[in-house]
């Protein structure tokens, strides 16, 4: 299997070819982690760059992410939970009172493509649920999303409850969403802010000192 073909197929969003090449790679004895790190991840990284450069937009990014996710499914069956090949674990969700998820979903997809283990709690997530998931999954990153000015207070409250629960120093908190700014992130005690999905990957790696 030619890894460049896999990278290209991810960039083009060619789901059947991505799946075929991933399966072919596994059949040829390639490690699942290698297929991820040398095939799917560079592909999605390029997609992220194309998005940031204004060449790809949401439809193209979703199309590539869907193709990548299809390939990843074959690999996830092989990754064992005790021998995790992921960079780190991210718990992600939209805060209580907020039902918007497309931005959060894209961040989750791009982070998966970058090699993170992503636990997506969905929308309208109470703070206590975030605390529970961070503890259960030993998460390294807690990523919070909000779209409305009226749900930004919920982001602040969530961080407050995380702090009160005694797990604050075990996890890095990343925030994002349309009305969120780095100034707001600092005010509410988050560790970082990113304005888009590729930025979230960069920020998360930076916070965890990963290359």
């Amino acid at each position: 299997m030619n890894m460049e073909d896999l990278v290209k197929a991810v960039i083009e969003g060619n789901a059947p070819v991505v799946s075929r090449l991933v399966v072919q790679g596994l059949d040829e004895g390639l490690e699942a982690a290698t297929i991820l790190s040398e095939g799917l991840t560079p592909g999605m990284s390029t997609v992220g760059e194309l998005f940031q450069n204004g060449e790809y937009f949401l439809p193209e990014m979703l199309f590539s992410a869907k193709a990548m996710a299809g390939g990843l499914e074959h690999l996830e069956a092989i990754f064992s939970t005790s021998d995790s090949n992921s960079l780190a674990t991210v718990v992600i969700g939209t805060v209580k009172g907020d039902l918007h998820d497309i931005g959060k979903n894209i961040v989750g997809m791009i982070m998966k493509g970058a090699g993170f283990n992503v636990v997506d709690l969905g929308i309208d997530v109470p703070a206590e649920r975030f605390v529970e998931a961070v503890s259960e999954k030993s998460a390294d990153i807690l990523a919070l999303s909000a779209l409305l000015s009226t749900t930004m207070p919920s982001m602040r409250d969530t961080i407050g409850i995380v702090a009160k629960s005694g797990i604050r120093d075990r996890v890095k908190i990343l925030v994002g969403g349309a009305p969120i700014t780095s100034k707001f992130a600092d005010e509410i005690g988050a560790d970082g802010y990113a304005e888009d999905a590729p930025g979230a990957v960069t920020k998360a790696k930076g916070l965890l000192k990963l290359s």
Partner: protein
Amino acid sequence: MNKSKGSMTRRERVVAALDHKEPDRVPLSMSITINAYDNLKHYLGIDLEEDLNPGRWTEVPIHPLVAEKFGLDVIWLPTGKAHKKPRQTDDPNKWYDGWGVEWTKIPLTGGGYYNEMTCAPLKDATIQELEDFDWPDPFDPGITEGVREYYKHIHNDTEFAILTKFGGAVFEQAWYLRGMETFLLDMVENPEFVEALLEKIARIQMGFDEVLIAAAGEYVDILRLSGEDMGTQENPIISLPMFRRMVRPHLERLWAYAKENLLKKNPNAKIMLHSCGAVSSFLPDWIDMKLDVLDPIQPKAKGMDPFELKAAFGDKLTFHGGIDAQHVLPFGTIEEVREHTRKYIKALAPGGGYICAPVHNVQGDVPPENLVAMRDAVEEFGYYPINL
């Protein structure tokens, strides 16, 4: 009803601005959600019982007495309600709109609620199933019931310029029906479905335009074509080539129909598009599609600097909006609201072509003091000639 301050009537002021002439003062416009409206009425000391039915975005019409006391120049009037009941539910927190989209009332921190879409009726539909879907009927007699009489009354008995929405969105309605993520994926992997869906929706919206323009078009000063959000905070939602290939043909036909028929009724009327987000790359196309007014000029969105927009497009577009609702109005001090309003008047008002307004339906977290500060800033800085 009392006359506004200044040398022009409210409507004269708005019409001048729309015609790219300098009125006596920058006109003021606003739309508002139910909680913010109740707070504002209370703050202004207005004791007015109203039977309010919030729309999909939890917005309510502002009563003319409130609009006058607050100091608006533009009043947004509702249209009629279809006789055919939408799908019903026993859940008091859920409801369905006329398109079959499910909405849920989500409680807000601090009280009140906000409507959110919670189920897209066409999320699993095939192209064949589109024909059998229970589409809204623009020719339902309820749609125009009472409209002509009310619009005529406001036009004849008040000074307000009338803003309204008849037929609504095409692109945005498509993703309400399909789910945003599914629809955006459809645009790449299922273009025939997208074409069929947009064509169907546009035809229905044209029907709404047809009946309502016939009923009350001569009283309308600004026809808000729709809320077609084409931008996120950072980028356009879709590329310009994709817009031109897949969306523009439907919008162009609809806008041309609306404008042609509206101008037959009121030759001075203008068509306005609401499109949130980073949409500056679409403006040349929208101008080519004969758009007159752009709303809302979202301050924090990329590429929406008001000085740049005025320089590039100010001779062709009137700008409606500008007052930030993501930070300044909900969280800003009175002084920050004043300064922000001053900046937008400075940028957009010279030469006319600006109607000041919050960039979205005022949300429940906006203190009424800040709305008053915005209004006061228009009074302080908005008289022509603008020397800021």
